[in-house]
């Protein structure tokens, strides 16, 4: 099933023409309106007029997350604030988040993108959609909410957490589509099992899961436990939010909404674009966004693009599920976590050269974050309560910066292994 068949199945030649027109318009606009882009283009010796074909995209400079921070909060917007109807933000590394903004039309387009995903998953206006993504600055909750309403489905905006209530409403309302992170879906399934929920009475038939990496094994497990079709969805706030790419019923990769986003795969070391079929870093350029367009944004996500036509009839390029990152970012319960965020907290409590490590593990079905901190002379005290005070302070600060809870573990010096003098900041023990 299609939400916008004429676009989703557009012949590629026609699509490329549409993309080029939109790209030219976007490039001219960011050049005219955003000093950051004008300077970056000039530094690379490129002008909007140089973009004559889609291949010319590679002449443009990359944009990275730091650029968003440098222009905090609204410096990269191309419209006056009175045209912005919503902002979203992701947690920052030094307390300042990265902020994105949407016009009314952007929200409509985003809703259409999510609607494509919901429709491609086999759901429709008669669906009961339980949205268990977090609502708020995170794009997950509201992104799905508007998409599901756009489809005309009935939305249950329950947000994350409170599993017993989730299960009660799922049963009583007859939820057909569950939207949340895959790990939370697994967690809910276990709770349902423990609470003696009769799965045969549930009307659930589809899950759209995203905001964190998951594996084929997890898909199998989710499909078996719930008796549903488990669909993948991809997105990031810097580009739009959930729905940048979505899976169809063939489950052979995620279709990128190419009428809105130009994908590239690059060699993360050299920045050189790679051909279809090769593994590298995903880069996106938005070509139809009013509030916050972005040029060649380096996602740090590793994937592969495929151009061959899918059995579903969609002509959009498919990306394979993200297999890793080119940086040390962790995704824990859908939240992006950078070691540098933890470091900033340690620096704040007066540690000049903190030694720490983030250890993430999956206990049962939920991810747990432990932050190991080596006790320095400065931090140490002969009194238990002072060390416990430090533990408590670290826990509170880290919780407030990351937005998720972490267990603090104080360890002896040299406990955290150093490789070539540099400590390993992240240990991911999750088997997903």
């Amino acid at each position, binding site marked *: 099933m299609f939400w916008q068949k004429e676009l989703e199945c557009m012949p590629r030649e026609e699509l490329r023409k549409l993309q080029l027109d939109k790209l030219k318009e976007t490039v001219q606009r960011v050049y005219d309106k955003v000093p950051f882009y004008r300077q970056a283009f000039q530094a690379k010796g490129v002008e909007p007029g140089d973009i004559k074909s889609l291949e010319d995209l590679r002449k443009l400079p990359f944009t990275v997350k730091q650029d968003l921070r440098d222009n905090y909060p609204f410096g990269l917007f191309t419209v006056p604030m009175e045209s912005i109807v919503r902002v979203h933000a992701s947690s920052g590394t030094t307390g300042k988040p990265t902020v994105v903004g949407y016009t009314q039309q952007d929200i409509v387009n985003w809703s259409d993108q999510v609607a494509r995903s919901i429709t491609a998953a086999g759901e429709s206006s008669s669906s009961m959609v339980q949205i268990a993504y977090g609502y708020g600055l995170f794009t997950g909750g509201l992104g799905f909410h508007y998409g599901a309403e756009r489809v005309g489905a009935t939305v249950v905006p329950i947000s994350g957490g409170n599993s017993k209530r989730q299960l009660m409403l799922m049963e009583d309302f007859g939820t057909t589509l569950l939207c949340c992170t895959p790990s939370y879906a697994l967690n809910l399934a276990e709770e349902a099992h423990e609470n003696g929920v009769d799965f045969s009475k549930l009307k659930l038939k589809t899950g759209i899961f995203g905001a964190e990496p998951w594996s084929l094994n997890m898909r199998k497990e989710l499909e078996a436990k719930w008796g549903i079709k488990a669909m993948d969805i991809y997105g990031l706030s810097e580009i739009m939010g959930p729905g940048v790419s979505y899976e169809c019923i063939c489950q052979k990769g995620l279709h990128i909404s190419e009428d809105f986003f130009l994908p590239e795969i690059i060699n993360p070391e050299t920045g050189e674009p790679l051909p279809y079929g090769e593994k590298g870093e995903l880069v996106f350029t938005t070509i139809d966004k009013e509030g916050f367009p972005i040029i060649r944004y380096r996602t740090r996500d590793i994937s592969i693009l495929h151009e061959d036509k899918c059995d579903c009839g969609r002509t959009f390029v498919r990306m394979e599920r993200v297999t890793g990152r080119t940086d040390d970012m962790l995704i824990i319960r859908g939240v992006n976590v950078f070691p540098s965020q933890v470091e900033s907290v340690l620096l704040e409590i007066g540690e000049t050269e903190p030694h720490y490590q983030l250890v993430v593990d999956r206990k049962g079905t939920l991810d747990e974050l432990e932050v190991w901190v080596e006790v320095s002379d400065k931090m140490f*005290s*002969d009194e*238990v309560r002072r060390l416990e005070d430090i533990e408590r302070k670290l826990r509170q600060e880290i919780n407030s910066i990351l937005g998720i809870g972490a267990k603090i573990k104080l360890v*002896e010096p040299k406990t955290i292994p150093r490789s070539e003098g540099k400590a390993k900041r992240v240990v991911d023990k999750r088997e997903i």
Partner: protein
Amino acid sequence: MILRGEGMRVKQISLFLENKSGRLAEVTRLLGTNDINIRALSIADTTDFGILRMIVSNPDEALKVLKEGGFTVSMTDVIAVEVADQPGGLGAVLQVLQDNGINIEYLYAFLEKSSNDALVVLRVEQIDEAINILQAKGINTLKGEDVYSL
């Protein structure tokens, strides 16, 4: 001459210990091979870590050896108090401190004795004030050197 305040402080070695096997043994091994004797010790522990506190025969050397051994170590001043080895002995000392508004962070006992009295380590915030008050009440505190060489 009665030594007051500063002169009566005793150096205590404190050390951070993770709750994992073999760590305490490593501390005692390091001290042993460096000919350092432990006079008194206590461990305060939580579910995740412990703090080992010791009075040793040569605190400066112990600090150096343990630091080189990769431990987080610090030196803190404490008071060594003689307590009558009889029921109510410790109580009398604590009463004096309480009457004068001095809070005790923690305390522990020596195994050895300098005389017929028992010997107790006291950790307080206002250390010189505490020493003066105890001495004024006729309670004997020991000099560092006397404690290290017990």
